[in-house]
């Protein structure tokens, strides 16, 4: 018999007893002697037959398929080293950078991505024993020009996007900006006016601060609408 002890949406800390008996569990939980304990400071979520703890802080851990925003920190003859804000530095090999074949004799890696460039990229593979590999040869990926880059906690990105993108689409619409969210917590904002960009950033920072509260979409809508009047 399984029994959930913690309250749904409660703030839990490492070592808090959450449930007993057989139950499916997700991230942020350790099992010990048939009891389930939280392993992080986070928001407890009880979904009936499934429990998990959403961490409120923490470094980004790469997952294959994630869209991330990185910064080129090193250029070599046939590859780039990219900082993606995780404990492991990512490698973008020249073969995965462009759709054309890369010839190290004719082509110059610096002409594709130079030091300090901000790139939108996808994680192709990562398994903790080796550093993550990136790709930019898919549609929509590549260098980001202009705009502003902000960094928030990676764990709050799902909240910024919202259910089926409701939150991010609302911000985009109300502030008339282009926004790209990287799963690693970096967000690129581009608008025609500086005020629009700043308003979008203000909204995103508010989401980060209040990520663990309820009814956030309504408050953000109110906040942006108020400013416009």
């Amino acid at each position, binding site marked *: 018999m399984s029994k959930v002890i913690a309250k749904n949406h409660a703030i839990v800390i*490492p*070592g808090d007893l959450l449930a007993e008996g057989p139950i499916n569990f997700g991230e942020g939980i350790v099992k010990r002697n048939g009891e389930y304990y939280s392993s992080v*400071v986070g928001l407890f979520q009880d979904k009936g037959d499934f429990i998990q703890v959403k961490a*409120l802080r923490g470094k980004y851990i790469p997952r294959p398929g994630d869209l991330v925003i990185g910064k080129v920190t090193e250029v070599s003859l046939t590859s780039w080293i990219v900082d993606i804000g995780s404990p*492991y530095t990512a490698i973008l090999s020249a073969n995965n950078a462009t759709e054309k074949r890369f010839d190290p004799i004719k082509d110059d890696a610096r002409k594709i991505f130079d030091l300090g460039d901000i790139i939108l990229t996808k994680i192709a593979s990562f398994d903790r024993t080796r550093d993550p590999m990136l790709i930019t040869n898919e549609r929509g990926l590549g260098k980001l020009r202009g705009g502003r880059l902000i960094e928030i906690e990676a764990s709050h990105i799902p909240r910024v996007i919202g259910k089926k993108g409701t939150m991010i689409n609302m911000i985009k619409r109300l502030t008339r900006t282009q926004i790209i969210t990287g799963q690693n917590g970096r967000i690129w904002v581009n608008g025609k006016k500086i005020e629009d960009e700043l308003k979008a950033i203000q909204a995103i920072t508010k989401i980060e601060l209040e990520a*663990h509260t309820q009814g956030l979409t309504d408050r953000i809508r109110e906040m942006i609408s108020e400013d416009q009047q």
Partner: protein
Amino acid sequence: MAGDGTVKLIDEKGIRLDGRKADELRPVSIKIGVIKNANGSAEIRMGKNIIIAAVYGPRELHPKHRALADRALIQCFYRMSTFSVNDRKSPAPSRREKEISMVISNSLSSVVLTEKYPRTTIDVYLQVLQADGGTRTASLTAASVALADAGIPMKGLIASVAAGLINDQVVLDLFDIEDQKGSGDLPLGYCPVLDEISLLQLDGVFTVKQFEDSLNIAIKGAKDLYEIQRDALKQKYTDIRAEVEVPEKPKAEEPKVEPKVVPKPVLKVEKPKTEEPKPSEDDKREVE
């Protein structure tokens, strides 16, 4: 370190020099998020002690050959500021500081789930701004809070406090004078969740009875300290919640209560349906 026991540190009524009883902790306050650049941080004030703990990581380890293939390395850097004690402390890392750094990092390694971040390092910087005895235990207490604040997965927090002997009497949480003039001191790191001891040192001569009493009194003190650690970690988030959610709560509760009062199950289904399209219609209008 231990004195000869000739100085009178506790009176007949069991009141110590700073007015505490034998089994009483110094006033403790813990605050998280004091260092904005760090991934996690905590400040502990325990009596006159002020210590800041800052956690960076998990991050890449340099030099790379020190990295462990299967888990993260925990590196602690315990430092006393030159101005933290009466006689200026030399800024060079002393033998004592290296020892304390090592025992704290070993102690933390027993609760942190290091295998989640192989090949990385978790750096814990502990800066003592003001020292008044028991800084190693206070540092460990702050370090475990800072690690939790950094979002690093752990089995549980470590609460740490010392017990000791003054005038042949067992007391909790020694301060500087008791540490120097007393006849023994027993720093303990204890994880209340696991019921495990992760740090135990001893200085001075104890009888078996005194040792057992000291251990029990220290474990009891650590359990009290754990409650303060827990509150410190939750405070930040519950404060934000209280600030933004309270004015909206009546609104959110009203529609929930109504369907429960109505006995017909048909209405239960209808009500949310009629309620839900309304905001979505508004949304559509805004789009247009």
